[in-house]
């Protein structure tokens, strides 16, 4: 299948997969590239690439300042995340449990290439469901609080979600998302979390663990194609590409392990999309027949539809010329993400509630406080 991308999307993806091509970018190309990269949380990544490829001196000064600013922000957020994890482990010091780091913080601990350029806002952790209540109350004693939520949101988290409402320490701002499984309880996916804990790998700091390489990859795909709405999630697909490249070089049997595990966890279809789009967009070296080992795979029609929608949504809109087709793709994927997370009888009231709230927020215009 061929990839049909708009001009500005091509320019972004070129810069990411072939940074040497950036030497041919004009000043106005750079200006647009920065705006696009920022929109999809890839400014820090772009900065790392420019430096790594020795292009720093060829970048226009106004662009270099923005790249620096982007990387400073990324580094600050990563430092805050690491510190939040440090404080969580401190607060749970005397409680014997297993904590698995997820997403950005995990990529950093696993030393995945380019993890230092990843914009990670929240700290994501996975804990055994049986320990969840104890952990929550221990953290509450030590100063973490739930953000004030509406009764509806509170119930949504408690009854249907795969995580508890986010926690924030009273003296800090980093949001901690504590998961007890990797997909919402309402979704059709039933992931056996016990298998993930059994395969988890300890880090240098013995109290914190990482998902095994294949599980880390699968979770990345689940998160992108199942938990999110895909709009502007190009960063997450690039995460997947980075993980695949890194782990497949380390372990000759990686691809076999990955596909076996996806089948075992019954996440083959999502893994198929992950491999398909990572290869399509970032030219990930996925071995030829490997996708055929996944069972079940999406049918031809489904794949054709996803093929039309996913790239349109993943890539940022042109900031000055948004198109209707991209907006439509986002809307359809938004519905899809909710549909696979929840059965209709939960979904419809949920969407009605969210729409009503959005309308109320839009009309109540004088409550925001610009500086």
């Amino acid at each position, binding site marked *: 299948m061929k990839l049909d991308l708009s001009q500005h999307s091509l320019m972004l993806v070129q810069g990411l997969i072939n940074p040497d091509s950036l030497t041919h970018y004009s000043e106005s190309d750079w200006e647009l590239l920065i705006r696009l990269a920022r929109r999809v949380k890839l400014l820090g990544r772009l900065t790392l690439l420019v430096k790594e490829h020795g292009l720093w001196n060829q970048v226009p000064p106004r662009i270099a300042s923005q790249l620096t600013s982007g990387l400073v922000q990324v580094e*600050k957020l990563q*430092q805050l995340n*690491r*510190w939040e994890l*440090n404080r969580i482990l*401190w607060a749970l010091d005397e409680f014997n449990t297993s904590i698995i780091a997820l997403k950005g913080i995990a990529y950093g601990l696993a030393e995945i290439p380019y993890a230092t350029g990843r914009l990670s806002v929240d700290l994501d952790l996975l804990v055994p469901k049986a320990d969840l209540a104890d952990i929550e109350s221990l953290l509450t004693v*030590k*100063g973490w609080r739930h953000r004030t939520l509406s009764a509806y949101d509170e119930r949504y988290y408690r009854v249907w979600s795969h995580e508890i409402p986010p926690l924030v320490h009273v003296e800090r701002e980093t949001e901690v998302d504590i998961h007890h499984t990797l997909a919402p309880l309402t979704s059709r996916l039933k992931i056996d979390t016990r298998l993930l804990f059994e395969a988890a790998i300890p880090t240098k700091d013995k109290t914190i663990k990482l998902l095994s390489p294949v599980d880390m990859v699968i979770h990345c795909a689940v998160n992108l194609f199942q938990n999110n709405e895909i709009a502007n999630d190009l960063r997450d697909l690039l995460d997947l590409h980075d993980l695949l490249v890194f782990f497949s070089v380390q372990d000759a049997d990686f691809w076999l392990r990955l596909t076996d595990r996806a089948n075992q966890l019954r996440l083959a279809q999502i893994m198929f999309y992950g491999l398909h789009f990572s290869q399509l967009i970032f030219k990930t070296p996925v071995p030829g027949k490997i996708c055929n080992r996944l069972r079940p795979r999406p049918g031809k029609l489904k794949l054709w539809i996803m093929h039309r929608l996913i790239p349109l949504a993943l890539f940022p809109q042109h900031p000055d010329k948004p198109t209707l087709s991209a907006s439509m793709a986002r809307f359809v994927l938004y519905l899809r993400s909710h549909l696979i997370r929840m059965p209709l009888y939960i979904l419809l009231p949920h969407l009605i509630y969210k729409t009503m709230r959005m309308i109320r927020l839009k009309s109540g215009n004088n409550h925001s406080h610009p500086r």
Partner: protein
Amino acid sequence: MRWQANHFQALLIEDWGEEYTVFQPDSGKTHFFNLMSMQMLIFLNQNPATPEEISVHLATQFHQAMDNSFLINIEKTLHHFDTLGLVSKLHQSSQHGGQSDSV
């Protein structure tokens, strides 16, 4: 219970004459300390110590009576430093010479 300073070498310290601004890279926070708090951190960096040992040391240095309220203040500061991640409890297994927790 013995306490020790965490990553003391990494701290950036500006001395304004008995008042200090301290940057802690791990947390990214800037702290403001008086002379006694600073001396306490320096002491805990040299050797892990119990609150009682810290009290004796600081009381001598600042010519203060080592009474109960002084000890309570030391413990309060320790607790504050602990939540800031500037000091931590020394775990039994890593204690030097296997002292008991009580003095």
